[in-house]
């Protein structure tokens, strides 16, 4: 029973959500109730795991583990944000400005770092994989799209050339759609495996 109950709950929930999507008019109200339950459950899970997170880092600080200073910063930042959010309210403009004032520069810096690392990887590509179809097509497309991005060719205003540029600019979209079709099919297969109970990632 201990093994069967989670499978039944998972399958029934999945079938109910599917039915709710197909018959939105008659089951729409029930679907939103079920989704609200899911939100409440996920909120409780988050609370539990945050408590675990706090306890773990407090433990690191108490034991004086190597690098405990980061745990101290993490716990303090968490508590200050939690207390300020509880007192001021999460929609308070001052609170939001304060949060975004910290988050945005950090995220922008990380994005800049990603761009740099990506450029390094592009340069390392030839050294590690040599000259092959992938590296050559990568180089040609990178150079081509950098030139197209400059807008010089578009400024010539020559009909056939503009048509060719439009075709070339559509190529990445075709590749992206191919990958997206693959992702969608993979997602459907995964959903089916869970739906029939063949895979039970929630249980061992």
């Amino acid at each position: 029973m201990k093994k069967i109950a989670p499978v039944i709950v998972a399958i029934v929930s999945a079938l109910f959500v599917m039915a709710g999507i197909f018959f939105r008019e008659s089951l729409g109200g029930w679907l939103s109730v079920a989704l609200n339950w899911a939100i409440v459950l996920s909120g409780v899970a988050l609370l539990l795991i945050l408590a675990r997170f706090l306890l773990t880092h407090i433990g690191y600080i108490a034991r004086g583990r190597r690098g405990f200073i980061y745990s101290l910063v993490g716990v303090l930042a968490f508590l200050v944000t939690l207390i300020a959010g509880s007192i001021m309210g999460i929609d308070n403009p001052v609170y939001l400005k304060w949060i975004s004032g910290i988050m945005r520069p950090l995220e922008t810096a990380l994005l800049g770092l990603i761009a740099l690392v990506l450029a390094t990887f592009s340069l390392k590509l030839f050294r590690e994989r040599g000259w092959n179809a992938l590296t050559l097509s990568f180089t040609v497309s990178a150079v081509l799209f950098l030139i197209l991005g400059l807008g010089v060719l578009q400024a010539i205003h020559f009909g056939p050339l503009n048509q060719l540029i439009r075709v070339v600019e559509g190529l990445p979209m075709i590749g992206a759609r191919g990958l997206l079709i693959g992702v969608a099919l993979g997602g459907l297969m995964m959903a089916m495996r869970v739906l029939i109970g063949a895979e039970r990632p929630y249980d061992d």
Partner: protein
Amino acid sequence: MPELSLNDWLAYGLLLFLFVAFGIAYLVSWIKRKQSTLSSESKNPIDAILHHSAERGEGVLIALSDGDSGQIGSLTALAGLQTAGHVFRHSLNNDTAPKAMAGDGALSLLSQQLCAGTYHNAVMPELFRLESSALAGLGSFAYLAGLMPEISRPNLNALVMQGELNSELLLAMDLGVSQGKDTLISSSSLSGQVISYLANPHSALGAEAFLNKSTRPREKAAHDASLITLKVMGALIVAGLIVAVLLHFLGVLP
């Protein structure tokens, strides 16, 4: 019931076909698996990683999805959980236990439950540690910030990432590679797939992001059935696209 367009009918038809094809393939794979229990196991990168980790006495870090509950990322996260389960099951007696880091509260709890169940089933519950699964951070950058110190910890041999991971996974992967760790990446996000494939040719592309490794007959049969169905569907979609293009050039389709 709302009125359905041609595209809706096509989508429902494909879905139905997918379901029927998967059902048939699953049954066939299941029967085959039952008949030939001694069939040779195909080698998989994850097996090589587990082998190296056991040999060196070092751990494996499993990076699950960075959140997005209710999106397609949740499905890759479930595939990631299956991978985590496989790693936990095959590292029970390792010197350093594997650790799973997630970017979502529910995912962290599920992973913790999975790990506890694995040790319990192996009749060694005393070896289970609550720290085996943890929350790295909520949101993609917070997740990255929480993940990076874990990659740098000593006694770590490999980094296995599976989930909805965007371009920020590059920084984690770069850190892992620079420290000589084996890396395996499966992301369902488009940018994540492109970047990881550029950096590592063993990364998953398209539907591969949802595949995982298991030695259990039921899961293996489902995995084989998925592969067969994906091949059939892929061929069907390609044939459909070619016919549509031909019909377009012949003036039948607008």
